[in-house]
């Protein structure tokens, strides 16, 4: 029987293995060695690795430069942000410098660094603590961008990211930290740039990012009860993007829904839809659809945010509509009861 870990534990284990394997790896971020250890993902590492595991001043841009400069001379830093919103301070270093360091010096230097950023939702995190900005990073050549959805991939992709010779943006959805799943022991990697078919199906392709893969799974179960057979492609890597994997699925099903954690407008979902419209033109049986955030900032009040975030039911409805089910709206009754701003009942805020 395979061993189960939470997503947070998988990240911790991957980091531990990387620190243990290579003295050039180090881990830095606000609160990294503190008692909460970045939602548990860095606990105990300071004790084990000393100076290579460190806290830092509240200086996101500067510290990104520090990570880059150390990478240029051979270190392999992992930098953490507790919210991707804070990383906006460091876009100059990330997009102008790190992303281009290899290219603009004619390939003679490299910038192997990982920037872990947490994206999130719920509990009134509001407009400045819950953005999901993968579209920005994915737009920049020179960066790699991954968004693992399972504990298995979190570990395999983090190790691959640390071992990669390029700057990698590693985005963790806050609600995934709690999820448990099988995680092999020891070192293994998942390749950057390869999507994963999470569920095979005939009728509709759901290309999902990060946490939306879980909602897509729930949606697929709802759809299965209504004889709709959904295929789920967990995109995993936005840059490089495995367009081939999504296209193979779309060519089979003829239908595409993209489920993203970020804003729909100008989001990564647009790139997926555009590429499939270009590549699978003759094979599409219905207009593609996106299930993503509406065009407004995150409202804080739970009374508003419960209408903000798309869930399984929205994915399922979109699929049913696409397949011409007349009563898609009523097919999937609104869930009731449980609050929608927490991943499960054990979550009691405040973060």
């Amino acid at each position, binding site marked *: 029987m395979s061993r189960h870990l939470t997503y947070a534990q998988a990240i911790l284990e991957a980091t531990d293995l990387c620190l243990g394997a290579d003295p050039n790896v180090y881990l830095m971020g606000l609160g990294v060695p503190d008692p909460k250890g970045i939602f548990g993902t860095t606990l105990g590492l300071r004790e084990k690795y000393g100076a290579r595991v460190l806290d830092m001043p509240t200086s996101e841009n500067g510290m990104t430069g520090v990570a880059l400069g150390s990478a240029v001379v051979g270190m392999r830093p992992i930098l953490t942000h507790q919210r991707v919103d804070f990383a906006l301070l460091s876009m100059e270093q990330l997009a102008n410098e790190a992303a281009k360091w290899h290219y603009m010096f004619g390939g003679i230097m490299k910038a192997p660094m990982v920037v872990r950023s947490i994206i999130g939702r719920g509990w009134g995190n509001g407009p400045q603590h819950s953005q999901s900005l993968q579209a920005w990073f994915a737009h920049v050549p020179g960066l790699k961008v991954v968004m693992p959805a399972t504990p298995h991939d979190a570990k395999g992709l983090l190790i691959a990211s640390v071992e990669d010779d390029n700057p990698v943006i590693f985005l963790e959805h806050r609600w995934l930290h709690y999820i448990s799943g099988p995680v092999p022991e020891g070192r293994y990697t998942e390749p950057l740039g390869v999507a994963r078919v999470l569920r095979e199906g005939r009728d509709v392709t759901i290309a999902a990012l990060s946490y939306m893969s879980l909602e897509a799974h729930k949606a697929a179960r709802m759809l299965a009860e209504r004889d709709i057979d959904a295929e789920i492609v967990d995109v995993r890597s936005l840059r490089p993007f495995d367009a081939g994997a999504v296209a193979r699925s779309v060519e089979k099903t003829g239908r595409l829904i993209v489920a993203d954690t970020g804003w729909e407008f100008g989001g990564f979902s647009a790139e997926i839809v555009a590429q499939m419209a270009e590549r699978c033109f003759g094979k599409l049986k219905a207009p593609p659809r996106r299930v993503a955030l509406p065009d407004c900032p995150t409202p804080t009040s*739970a009374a508003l945010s419960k209408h903000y975030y798309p869930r399984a039911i929205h994915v399922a409805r979109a699929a049913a509509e696409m397949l011409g089910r007349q009563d898609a709206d009523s097919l999937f009754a609104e869930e009731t009861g449980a609050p929608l701003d927490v991943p499960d009942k054990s979550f009691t*805020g405040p973060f």
Partner: protein
Amino acid sequence: MDSRLRRQLFHDTLRIRLIEEEIAARYGEQEMRTPVHLSIGQEACAVGACAALRTSDYAFGSHRSHGHYLAKGGDLTAMLAELYGRATGCCRGKGGSMHLVDLKVGFLGATSIVASTIPIAAGSAFASKLRGEDRVTAVFLGEAATEEGVFHEAANFATLHKLPLVFFCENNLYSVYSGLEVRQPAHRPTWASAKGHGLRVLYGDGNDLEEAYELSLKSVDAARAGEGPVFLELATYRWREHCGHNYDNHIGYRTEAEYQAWRARCPIERAQQRLIADGLLGAAEVDEMRARIDAEVKAAFEAARNAPWPEPEEMATQVYAEGANAT
């Protein structure tokens, strides 16, 4: 110092304490679904600062700004309704605990990104300067905000243009669970990095209400007189956890002894003792004050909790301003 003022300052400090204690008491009910950063232990800084400001002066806050908002005169019920996510909240439920605003008293906003309101406050001070208004802008920050580059950019600009701006820096030794020693050089006080820009610098005991007030007044007066921006650093201490309502001395980032030492320097107890010693306040009067505040707080909580939720449509409104000038 005027004795009526001394009593007023004491009252205002006590009031903030009691309001935040009530938030703490109720936070576990999980009805205020927004991350709260309580200022319990630090209230004297907010009260001293705001007593030195006029209502027409502007102020900007940070993630930990219940006290600043209240001290500036912000509406209590509107704040609590905001914490409860209601339509009557000061941000109509869109902002939460870290986004407080009350235009009537010049509290122009708090935000949740460390240091982000600092240049914004410099901008409002710059507007006042351009317009020749007799108005000071205050910005509240924690000591960690001085680690952000944008603080230095704002400090340089404010000094360059001699802006009527006061930086009220509450140094509570911690940024979340991180002590100063992992963030700022040893033996270099936080204010020194402000002084480097040519700012006038003052510092003192933020747990001494009257000292906090006197230093604030000096700072605000200098800024108003056109002498340029002032950086006032007040030493203080947060009693409870960084975010949330619990005590957390047991988790290991600070010692119980350190907490107790600061606890013994409670700004409210110290002010009360002095007022009593000076014959300006009696124990019965304090009880009466407390009772009046309790009643106000209870009523405000009641009103906030009974307020209506925002309508679902409101989620997507107010993304863009559509005023006379909107296209």
